[in-house]
């Protein structure tokens, strides 16, 4: 798959995610209309107009649009990232700006906005909707732990996420997963005071129809409960393969795979989790900020729940590249 295909795939997947998000909310709204307002296919039912469905479709479309336009700001503010000035007196900041500029030149992209996350654990992420509206954030810990070459590798890794539009998909997912988790909480609270007016009113018409309605109601409730879990699994699955790809592109950009390899090793050695990066944005980072053991394993469960491939495998792949380079 070349760069253009990757970009197209990411644009397409972003649209699919947004559409799925809207469809999920339409489903929620339809259920609400059916069970609470008695909306149905013929006139004998309560209301004629699926008011909740239209409301949820409108709201979710607005949210999906907002996720694309302002998702990066939401992600950045949730990590309390601070923008770095173009000209800074702090030598570490100046070094970071220089390295970012170098990698922008190497990738032929505009210079992204640069942020620093006040956290002592080394980590980094990129966000935004396209290369013209991209931001790269690194933690203070990363700046103080890595040397220039290693920093270059990490920034190159983030720049390749920017270049192939990974950031667009991952940012939208971050924004929408956050919204689903929030609304699912809200929804389950709603159900408690509601209590299915519809199933009560229909029970007189015969037990068969009542049982069917009950089954549908249960399915609807279950879907509300498992939606956030599914959304998070999706977010995790979608980010894993991208890490290998971004590692490889970073090596190609810097022509120095060992710089990134030693950066990853240093990040791996610091076991503490990155506190300022929440669960919802974990899949954006260069290394899993939650410090979970599952990322060290391979296999079905790890495939399902880990946001990142095992660090040692990534390092081994990079070292392999370095070896080939020195012998070619």
């Amino acid at each position: 798959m070349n760069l253009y295909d990757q970009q197209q795939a990411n644009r397409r997947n972003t649209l699919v995610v947004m559409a799925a998000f809207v469809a999920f909310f339409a489903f929620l709204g339809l259920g609400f209309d059916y069970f609470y307002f008695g909306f149905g296919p013929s006139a004998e039912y309560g209301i004629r107009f699926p008011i909740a469905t239209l409301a949820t479709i409108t709201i979710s479309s607005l949210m999906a649009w907002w996720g694309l336009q302002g998702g990066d700001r939401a992600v950045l503010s949730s990590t309390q990232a601070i923008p770095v000035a173009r000209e800074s007196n702090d030598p570490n900041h100046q070094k970071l700006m220089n390295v970012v500029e170098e990698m922008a030149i190497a990738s032929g992209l505009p210079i992204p906005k640069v942020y620093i996350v006040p956290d002592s654990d080394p980590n980094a992420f990129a966000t935004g909707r396209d290369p013209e509206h991209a931001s790269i954030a690194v933690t203070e810990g990363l700046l103080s732990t890595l040397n220039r070459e290693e920093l270059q590798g990490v920034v190159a890794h983030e720049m390749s996420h920017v270049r192939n539009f990974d950031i667009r998909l991952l940012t939208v997912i971050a924004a929408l997963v956050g919204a689903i988790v929030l609304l699912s909480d809200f929804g389950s609270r709603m159900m408690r005071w509601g209590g299915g007016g519809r199933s009560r009113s229909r029970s007189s018409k015969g037990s068969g129809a009542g049982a069917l309605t009950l089954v549908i109601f249960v399915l609807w409730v279950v879907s509300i409960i498992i939606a956030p879990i599914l959304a998070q699994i999706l977010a995790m699955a979608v980010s894993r393969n991208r890490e290998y790809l971004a590692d490889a592109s970073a090596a190609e950009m810097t022509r120095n795979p060992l710089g990134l390899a030693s950066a990853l090793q240093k990040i791996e050695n610091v076991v503490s989790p990155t506190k300022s990066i929440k669960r919802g944005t974990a899949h954006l980072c260069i290394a899993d900020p939650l410090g979970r053991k599952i990322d060290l394993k391979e296999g079905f469960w790890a495939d399902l729940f880990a946001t990142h491939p095992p660090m040692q495998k990534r390092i081994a792949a990079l070292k392999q590249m370095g070896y080939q380079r020195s012998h070619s």
Partner: protein
Amino acid sequence: MIMFIFLGAIALVVLWAIAKYNGLISLRNQTENGWKQIDVQLKRRHDLIPNLVNTVKGIMTFEQETLEKVVAARSAAMGAKGVAESAAKEGALTDALSKFMVVVEQYPQLRSSENVKQLQEELTSTENKISFARQFYNDIATKFNTAQQVFPGNLIANNFGFKPVELFEITDAAERAVPVVDLSLKK
């Protein structure tokens, strides 16, 4: 019927030629843009050198020769015309600068100075930017040249006067030379 097929074939060829021509134009613009990127960084380096020289001049009294070499290489590079000559002169400047930085490292007084450290970071960054810009330019220029040379794109390129561009290569002998390793251990 045959007439229509004939006209259709001509229309297809014309459409193909237009697409190919536009592709070449776009590549040429990208190549020019890539060259400008290198140029910006080279200028930056030229501007940085007087600063650097003035900062260390007072302390590096014994190494006037190294300093003069840097200054001479800079003015030679600033006068260079065209890609190939620039590449050669800038290569010589890179070489002189790296020797100069090695010398700076030997002066503890310079090494610990904040000012020198900052200039060193700026110089490192500029050197990196030059090499990344060169990498980007060479990649896109190679693409442009290949698109002009392969069949049937070469028909368009020849008819509309596209010319292959020069790559920004390090032609300086000092950078190419492989250090001689003598393992005979004779004194």
